[in-house]
């Protein structure tokens, strides 16, 4: 597993181009310093460990929030893409699982975690399943793993959830409920990052943007 933190996702996807993309390059970016400043009003998010970064450009897409009409998307190419991403995540998760020793993750687990998170972001973008159901499941998974100090239960949760997801053809709200059950089963915090203050690897705080 040595040197894994430098790796980027390399899984390819025949349906709509290679999965490796700019997003995959974010491996190792998770300790970077983000900004959420907006013109007019003035907040930044900073990593307490470092100083402020310059503002990030924010081009507004202004997308509508209305769910797609017609419910499920039936494009087989999208299904292939969905399956391939699930396979890639499962492969990473199984590799990590195999390296668990004496109930502990290996020292270099962060590399695998970053890669899994990048793949989950790509899975989020696949317009497969009913309305926003897949996005809802992936969001629920991301809220458990992003910026978390992983332990074996995170790995088992991912394995369980992605396996269940992969075996489905239809992704609907029952998949979201399954995710909630899985969170409880592996004793993770179902309210992490919403009602409950999360335990994190990197703590971010909001500070005033003075415009300097």
């Amino acid at each position: 597993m040595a040197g894994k933190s430098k790796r980027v996702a390399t899984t390819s996807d025949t349906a709509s181009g290679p999965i490796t993309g700019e997003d995959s390059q974010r491996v190792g970016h998770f300790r970077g310093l983000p900004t959420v400043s907006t013109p007019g009003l003035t907040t930044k998010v900073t990593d307490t460990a470092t100083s402020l970064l310059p503002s990030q450009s924010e081009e507004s897409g202004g997308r509508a929030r209305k769910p797609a009409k017609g419910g499920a998307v039936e494009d087989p190419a999208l299904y292939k893409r969905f399956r391939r991403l699930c396979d890639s995540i499962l492969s990473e998760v199984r590799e990590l699982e195999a390296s668990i020793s004496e109930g502990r993750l290996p020292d270099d687990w962060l590399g695998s975690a970053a890669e899994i998170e990048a793949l989950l972001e790509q899975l989020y973008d696949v317009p497969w399943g009913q309305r926003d159901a897949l996005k809802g499941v992936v969001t629920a998974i991301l809220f458990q793993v992003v910026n978390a100090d992983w332990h074996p239960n995170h790995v088992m949760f991912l394995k369980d959830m992605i396996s269940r997801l992969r075996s489905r053809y239809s992704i609907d709200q029952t998949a979201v409920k399954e995710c909630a059950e899985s969170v409880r089963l592996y004793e993770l915090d179902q309210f992490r990052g919403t009602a409950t203050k999360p335990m994190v690897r990197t703590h971010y705080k909001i500070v005033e943007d003075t415009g300097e």
Partner: protein
Amino acid sequence: MNPPSVPPTLCRRALLETTIQVDRKKTGHRQAVIERLLEGFEWKFSTSITLLEFKATIIEACIFLHGVFRRSGSRFSDVLDAVTESQHRQQALRLHIIHNMVQITEGLFRNRNDRQERLAEIAYLQLENVIPQLYDWFSSPASVDQVLNDRIACTRAMEKPVKKVAKFETNLPRCIRDRNKRCQVEKVIRQHGPRLVKVLEPLATPSGEPNPNQFRRTLDVIQSVLANPKADLSHEDCRNAGDFLIGIEAEGHATEALSTNAREWEVVAKEMGMQFVHVKYPDERPWSR
């Protein structure tokens, strides 16, 4: 649920009022303090009015944020800014939730031009997942052994948050008897009101004062019901008299009342025949370390 193995009078039975139930979900640190305290109790109770207050605070804040994140073209940072600037009385709770979200969202979609819109989308999707779970948690065995509901039986408390096509239904619609309200609150107040008036009158601020204390607000609600046989309270009124209504629901069931709020709860607990347990947390503010 198995019956207790010792006679009920010997069991320690905790009443968890709203501040405790909210704090159990807010930070792991506070949760740990409370869970350690609860290890000494055989039974844990909450009540329907506590659930009403839980809905009116943390669930209401989540539903509000869901609504604003879900608006077309919504951007995460814009919502954060707007909530930071607002003067709403739930601002602190809303910011607490957004700050928690920032810990997660800051690691996501770093290289996307539409990042702020995507983060808003992620935020509302997760709130959509969590809101019904928060409601379910309150009554679950992980939270309490029983939500005491046989005296007041608050109708609003029993309604689970339901998402329609896009938004959640109104969390707490105004209560109107025979239309959307079947509770017993006026009956209970008429039954217990006279003795509570005696307790509250010496503690309440003078009537008509611009900043009435909690005892005055409670007293006003009770007197309005005692004076008017057709009184039809809504959930805002019940929340004004919340501490005493929670106490009435738990009277005779709980032996000890746990709260972070000593000013009101010492009085409520004494009146309802419970021992008061003041829950305190070590100071979490960084400047006091």
